[in-house]
């Protein structure tokens, strides 16, 4: 495994301090919550989270909040606009001497993939276009999880959701490239299974002013049909099979920050989740399995020589 890190190099360096206390109402094993907790550790306490409707909206339920930082729930469509209002107000108040500069905050949008790729995309692209100085954390559980795991534009090809009972027929929307087209200073994918990679990216991203994107593939036990105890392992398989490449981009270059020496077959990842069971039972859907593997292989092959090669057993290709 080839990795690239500058600030957080060993697990021991992860701060013990928690900014997101335990005991929330979210599901056991929620990969998104784990990623958010790590994300917050890297940012520190002087943070305000601006939230769009989704599972994370229920992290704080009156009268309790697990956040040691501030929190503003906006609406599903407009969390980036809320971030704009806060950022602008902080800037204006500091400039006018109405607020001491050391009371400044890092402004963070926390949103699911459904809001990020659909209803909230307009506000998001507008915030990037304006060069808003903020962090955007998308926990990508690949569906509208909070409302019962319906299909979102981030639901991958072939996956079963509550509104695609026989599997989606469309490919996952590419939020990373949508952002990158506008050349924000920092875009990255992260995973709760790779905490050092995640925290290192967040810490390094702080060097740049402007919009900073983090999409965390977020294993979702009830939605994906996995055991809570297996959540991190399945998230790790997504990286190790090449399905979820860990990468970042500033300027034009995309850099892969974790490159497995050899990729595991995609099926190893799919077979662990009930949302893909219909691809194997009652009959094996060879076409779509082949397509999913080919998509992953194609992605890595396009990257060139350094790319790992999928280790695919030949018999897996039989119909």
């Amino acid at each position: 495994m080839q990795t690239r890190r500058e600030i957080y190099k060993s697990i021991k360096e992860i701060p013990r301090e928690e900014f997101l206390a335990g005991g929330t109402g979210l599901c056991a094993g929620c990969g998104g919550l784990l990623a958010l907790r790590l994300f917050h550790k890297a940012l520190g306490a002087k943070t305000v989270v601006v939230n769009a409707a989704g599972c994370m909206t229920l992290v704080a339920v009156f009268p309790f909040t697990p956040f040691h930082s501030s929190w503003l729930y906006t609406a599903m469509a407009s969390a980036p606009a809320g971030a704009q209002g806060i950022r602008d107000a902080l800037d204006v108040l500091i400039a006018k001497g109405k607020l001491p500069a050391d009371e400044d905050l890092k402004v963070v949008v926390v949103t699911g993939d459904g809001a990020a790729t659909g209803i909230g995309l307009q506000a998001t692209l507008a915030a990037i276009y304006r060069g808003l100085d903020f962090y955007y954390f998308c926990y990508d559980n690949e569906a509208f999880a909070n409302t019962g795991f319906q299909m979102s534009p981030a639901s991958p090809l072939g996956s079963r959701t509550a509104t695609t009972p026989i599997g989606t027929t469309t490919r996952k929307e590419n939020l990373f490239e949508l952002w990158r087209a506008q050349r924000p200073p920092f875009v990255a994918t992260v995973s709760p299974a790779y905490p050092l990679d995640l925290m290192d990216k967040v810490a390094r991203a702080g060097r740049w002013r402007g919009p900073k994107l983090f999409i965390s593939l977020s294993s979702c036990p009830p939605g994906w049909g996995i055991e809570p105890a297996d959540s991190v392992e399945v998230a790790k398989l997504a990286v190790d099979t090449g399905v979820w490449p860990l990468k970042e981009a500033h300027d034009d270059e995309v850099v892969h920050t974790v490159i497995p020496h050899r990729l595991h077959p995609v099926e190893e990842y799919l077979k662990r989740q009930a949302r893909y069971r219909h691809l194997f039972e009652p009959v094996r859907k060879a076409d779509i399995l082949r397509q999913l593997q080919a998509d992953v292989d194609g992605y890595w092959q396009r990257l060139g020589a350094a790319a790992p090669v999928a280790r695919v057993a030949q018999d897996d290709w039989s119909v």
Partner: protein
Amino acid sequence: MRRDLLTGNAAAAWGARLAEVDYIPAYPITPQTEIIEDLAQWIGRGELEARLVTLDSEHSMLTAAGAAAATGARVFTATSSQGLVYGFEMLYTVAGWRVPLVLVNVSRALAAPITLEPDHNDVLAARDSGFLQIHAETCQEVLDSVLMAYRLTEHPDVLLPVLVNLDGFYLSFTREPVSLPAAAAVREFLPAYQPVHAKLSAGHAMAQGVAVLGGSAYAFFKYQMQRAAEAALAVHAGIAAEFADRFGRSYGVVEGYQLDDAEWVIVMANSFSTVGKAEVSRLRAGGEKVGLLRLRLVRPFPVATIVAALSGRRAVAVIDQNISIGKGGILFAEVASVLRGGSAPPLRSFIGGLGGRRFRSEEFDLMLAALRQAEHSGGSSEPHLLFSETEYLQLREMLRIAHGQK
């Protein structure tokens, strides 16, 4: 003090300028645009120290406005019509955050069919959101109301956002002489905003807009908003008295015109009240004891004042420039709901002025005749939809053309 010839829009912009706002999130819509353009000019010339940001929609604009207010900035924004309804979700949200905000709405009728001219379905659709509503008749009142609205919205007993309404085209682009109070005098009346509870900054960890489950906490917070809106009546009275002292212009929650000895009363709101007042004068000249009651504060609804003003009259007509399809006039329903018991006058409901449609003198004669009849037949009435025969004939001609008939 200066007197300038200002449009209603420019008067609204002057209100924001004199309030020395910190932040203006914006999105264009006719007929509101001039307000934002004026503010942008002043910021560009260094005459107003504020930040103006163009958002991607009114939904985002209102989110940014509320979030900036929750951070402790004094915020101004303006919209109209489709823009107001596009931002609807955030009206409720921002009001629920209990942050001060002044939003100017330049009334314009709602599609479809699409039009640019005014009626009040846009602003009245927002009446349950928690935004307080001040409806202005003149350009001077627009400016003054914006200043008073900041005092109201920032008052610790209120902390509900305030919407100041003016009619598109009829007021937004009409020039009237407007007294501009001196900046120093305004600063005394309206000191810099000191956040009372909402203040996002490193020194004040705060959770705002969190989920409440089970209903009782939700109900509690909504009841608090109701109590705050009720308290706003007394707060408004205090602000209005102080405003009158300092600037010599007084504004009540309602305005009476030839009302004291009036036997027949017409209830109206916004700039078309000026037409109503002229008609009242005409009818008075003919010996009719007619008066007009203009509703200025629509939320909170000044129940006691309205009851006192209308009780004991021979009959009352409510003219609505809006239509709740399937029911009728919204203000009629509001007024009727508070008038009860022995001294309650018979009421009649008229709908006119939709999409900027002008009122005619004959229609006021017709209303007076209807009131005379109402005095004897009593009861309430179906909405009377005003439309003249001439208009109908013109419309038939348009329909003929639209259908491609020769």
